[in-house]
C-alpha cells in the first residue's frame, strides 16, 4: 500500500459531487417537514394545548434521548415487521421521515425558546384588538420569533444536513453511499473519505456563511 494517491482522490470528487442532488433532496424535504412539525410541537408546548401537551413532552424527550441511527433502524427495520407500508417504503422516504421526526424535536425547542422571547404584552395586545389566539401567533408572535429562532434552527439544519449521510446505511444512494461503494472496491479508503469530508466541509461552510448573512439581514429590519 502506498501513501496518499492523488489520482484516486481526484477521481472520487466528481463521483461524489454527482450525487450531491440526492443528498440535497433528502436534506431539503427533511428540513421542510421538520420545520413544520417543529412549529406544531412548539406551539403545543408553548401554549400547553390540552391533551397534546403531555404527548408532545414524551415525544421530544424520546427523540432527544436516543441516537438517530437507532431511531432510523427501529423505524425502517423494526416497524417493518408490523407494517406493510414500511416494508415497501423507499429508503428515501424512510430517511426523510426519520430525519424529520428526529430534528423536529430539536427544532421545536429552538422555536419554543423564540416564542418565549416575545413579550407576553405582544400577545395580549393582539388579543385586545380582537384577534383570535392563532391569528395573534401567526401575525404578531411568529414574525418576531423568527429572528430569535434563526440561529438555533440554522445550526440544526447544518446538523440535519450532515445526518443525511446516515441514509446510506439503509441503502439510500447519496454522496456517502458512493464513497462506501467505491472504497470497498478500490480499497482507497483514505482518498475516498478525505474527498467526501472535504466536500461536506465545503457545503457546510457555504451554509454557515449564508446563515450569517441571513441573521444580519433579519436584525436590520426593525
Amino acid at each position, binding site marked *: 500500500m502506498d501513501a496518499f494517491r492523488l489520482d484516486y482522490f481526484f477521481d472520487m470528487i466528481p463521483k461524489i459531487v454527482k450525487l450531491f442532488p440526492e443528498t440535497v433532496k433528502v436534506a431539503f424535504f427533511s428540513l421542510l417537514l421538520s420545520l413544520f412539525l417543529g412549529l406544531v410541537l412548539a406551539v403545543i408546548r408553548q401554549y400547553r394545548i390540552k391533551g397534546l401537551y403531555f404527548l408532545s413532552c414524551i415525544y421530544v424527550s424520546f427523540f432527544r434521548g436516543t441516537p438517530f441511527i437507532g431511531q432510523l433502524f427501529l423505524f425502517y427495520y423494526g416497524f417493518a415487521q408490523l407494517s406493510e407500508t414500511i416494508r415497501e417504503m423507499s429508503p428515501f422516504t424512510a430517511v426523510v421521515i426519520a430525519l424529520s421526526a428526529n430534528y423536529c424535536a430539536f427544532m421545536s425547542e429552538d422555536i419554543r425558546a423564540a416564542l418565549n422571547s416575545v*413579550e407576553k*404584552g*405582544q400577545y*395580549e*395586545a*393582539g*388579543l*385586545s*384588538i*380582537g*384577534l*383570535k389566539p392563532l*391569528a395573534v401567533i401567526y*401575525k*404578531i408572535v411568529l*414574525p*418576531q420569533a423568527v429572528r430569535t429562532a434563526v440561529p438555533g434552527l440554522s445550526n440544526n439544519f447544518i446538523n440535519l444536513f450532515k445526518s443525511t449521510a446516515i441514509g446510506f446505511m439503509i441503502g439510500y444512494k447519496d454522496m456517502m453511499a458512493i464513497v462506501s461503494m467505491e472504497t470497498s472496491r478500490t480499497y482507497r479508503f483514505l482518498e475516498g473519505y478525505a474527498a467526501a469530508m472535504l466536500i461536506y466541509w465545503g457545503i457546510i461552510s457555504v451554509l454557515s456563511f449564508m446563515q450569517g448573512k441571513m441573521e444580519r439581514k433579519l436584525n436590520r*429590519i*426593525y
Partner: protein
Amino acid sequence: MIKVRNLKKSFGELKVLDGISFDLEEGKVLVVIGPSGTGKSTLLRCMNYLERPAEGEIEVDHIKVEAKTAKKEEIYKLRSRTAMVFQNYNLFKNKTALENIMEPMTSVQRIPKQQAEKKALEILDAVGLIEKREHYPSQLSGGQQQRIGIGRAMAVNPRVMLIDEPTSSLDPELVGEVLALLYDLARNHTTMIIATHEMEFARNIADYIIFIEDGKIIEEGDPEQFFNEPKTYRAQQFLKKFKKNDIG
C-alpha cells in the same frame, strides 16, 4: 351603557377584585384611582377578558358576558367592542406605526387595505404623528409609542377604551403629550375607563371617579366632590399622601 356587576377575581389567596360594580354612560370618562396593587389594572384587564374574572357580569354595547358561562365567541365580541391602551404601550414591534393602527381594521374588521390605510392616516394625524408613519416602535420615544398605542385603540372603533396607567412608564417630560391627547378624546366624547396615578389629570378629565382599595370600591362620586371633600377616611389618607408628594 357599560355595566359591570359584582366582578370578582383572585390570584391564589389574594382577592384582587372583590365585587366591583359600576355603570358608565356612553361618552363619559370613568377614572379609577387607588393605591398600587389594589386591582385597578386587573379590573381593566377583566373587562376585555385578558384576565378571566371568577365571577360577575360585564355588559358593553348589549353584549353581556357572564364570567361563569363566558364562551369564546362572546369574549371575541367583547374584545371587538373594547380597546386597550397598555402601560408599556405594547405596540406590535414587527409593524410600523401605520401598520399598528391598520391592524385592527384589516385583520379584525376586514376593511379593505386602501380604506384602512386612509383611516389610519387620519388617526395618525389626530395623534399628531403623521410624519412617523413608517417608523417602527423601536424608533419612537415612549410618548410617541403611547400616542400610537392610543391610535391603535381608536382604530378598533370601540364602545369603550380601557386605558391602563397610560403615563406610568414615561419620562416626566413626555407625560404631557399623552395626557393632551386623552383630553382631546374626552372632548370628542370617547367613552373611557382610565386607571391613573396622575391626580390632577384624574380630576380634570373624569366625569366620575371610583376609588378602589383591596379589590373593593371604597368611595365613588363626581371628581369635584371626591377631591375636595372625600367622605371616607381611606380616601382622605390616600389623597393626603398625594398632596404631600406634590409639594415634595
